[in-house]
């Protein structure tokens, strides 16, 4: 039997995780990936906000409706010629008596490649199961919730609006291209069709998932050299005990489920 037992109920666990998740702050990453047929570079920020805590014995902390608010700045190169054929109108000459040859100009339109920047933000929700992990690192006992498995992200309805944002960004990016005017609508439609919802989730899923699956949710920390009393003068040095072992588990103690920390100490 452990010498010290500290326990919190689900209500306190909810408060604890609300605080700890908020303390995680903004996470960020950047890199390169693909958006449908396009190679993209991106920079993403994400911030978690807590869901509903459910303690499940013997060792699971379920967080339902964990929410990740994210924002992405991405950029991709759009070769317009991949979607609209280049235009080549040869020169045509007509011989007119007394006038001579009259020729139309030769027209060659080779569509350029343009850079398309897109900025967009939304949120995803997921339910994750956290296992309780204990570690002793740099003389600190750490109790953390570690995500089990890979969460299934449920993108919000508004995420589909990212397609609209991409369409607007494409239209804006090609606006300077001569003679593109009549073809913009076709181009936008072709790009969006090429990307599709699958392209969006294929991009966002792998980028955003690590924000959740890679996160360790702090539950508590206890120094292995634990200070019982602070120094209180020249004859009263600080008092410490050694925390020899620390454990944590979820216990079902009817009618409640409780998160329990167990410790043994020595003088």
């Amino acid at each position: 039997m452990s010498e010290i037992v500290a326990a919190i109920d689900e209500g306190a666990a909810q408060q604890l995780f609300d605080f700890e998740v908020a303390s995680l702050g903004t996470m960020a990453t950047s890199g390169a990936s693909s958006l449908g047929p396009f190679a993209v570079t991106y920079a993403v920020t994400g911030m978690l906000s807590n869901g509903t805590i459910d303690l499940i014995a013997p060792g699971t902390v379920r967080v339902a409706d964990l929410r990740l608010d994210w924002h992405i700045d991405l950029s991709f190169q759009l070769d317009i010629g991949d979607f609209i054929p280049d235009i080549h109108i040869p020169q045509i000459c007509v011989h007119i008596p007394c006038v001579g040859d009259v020729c139309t100009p030769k027209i060659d339109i080779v569509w350029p490649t343009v850079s398309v920047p897109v900025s967009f933000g939304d949120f995803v929700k997921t339910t994750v199961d956290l296992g309780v992990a204990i570690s002793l690192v740099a003389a600190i006992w750490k109790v953390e919730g570690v995500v089990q498995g890979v969460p299934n992200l449920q993108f919000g309805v508004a995420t589909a609006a990212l397609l609209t944002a991409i369409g607007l960004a494409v239209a804006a990016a090609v606006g300077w291209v001569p003679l593109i005017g009549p073809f913009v609508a076709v181009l936008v439609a072709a790009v969006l069709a090429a990307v599709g919802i699958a392209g969006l989730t294929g991009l966002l899923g792998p980028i955003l998932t690590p924000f959740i699956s890679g996160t360790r949710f702090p539950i508590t920390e206890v120094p292995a050299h634990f200070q019982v009393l602070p120094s209180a003068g020249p004859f009263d040095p600080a008092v410490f005990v050694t925390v020899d072992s620390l454990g944590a588990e979820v216990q079902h103690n009817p009618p409640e489920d409780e998160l329990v920390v167990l410790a043994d100490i020595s003088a």
Partner: protein
Amino acid sequence: MSLTEAREVFVAVEETALNDLITAVCATRPHLLHYGSPAFVTASSTSATQMAPIPFPGSPGLQWSVELTIPRLDLFKEDMPLPPELSLGPGQFSLATEVRLCVDCAGGREKPQDDPDGHDHDPKEPRDPRDQWPDDRDDWGKARHPVCCRLGVYAVGHLVSTWVGGERAIGFALDDLELVDVEPNALESVLECLLAMILRSVLATLSLPVSALQLDAFTLTPTEGPLIDVNRVLARGDF
């Protein structure tokens, strides 16, 4: 039955851990258990607390010291045998320690010594009164004729709520004390009264913050306890 019951946070400290905490405090700050006048304690330090000699007419003061071993606590229910005069009730702890009482027996230092000149002392010559009660302030820390005894002390008490460093803490209050194997009974009563006063004062300086009881694992604002349950101290409260 849940641990937290109607509260959000629960903490329980077994008596072994409580003794570890008390041992840590007493071992780091041994002056909490060791007091003495200058002949025994040169100066206050981490090891000992210097106090004044006991004033007495015709003397510069009686030199003394009191030293206790680190007390061992037994929380209700009783695991550590107690003298029959004591009983451990619900909510109480018992305590066992050993006290070492010393006095510097100034009268006993006048052992006959050979005169260095080979002359006997003339009994007609008046004695210098300082020879009987020498002012030995130059010899602090040098009890010349310490006479000591060790007594086994058993006591029972209860927890009290207190504060240390602005933090909620538990303290220890004495209810009853018993010495063993001291006779005659009147002497035993005097010594018990003396040691009860000493132990009560010592315990008043000994307190443990509630945060230490649960290693600061969770925030705890106690609304129930800390109190002595069966062989443990427990508290419940809000997060």
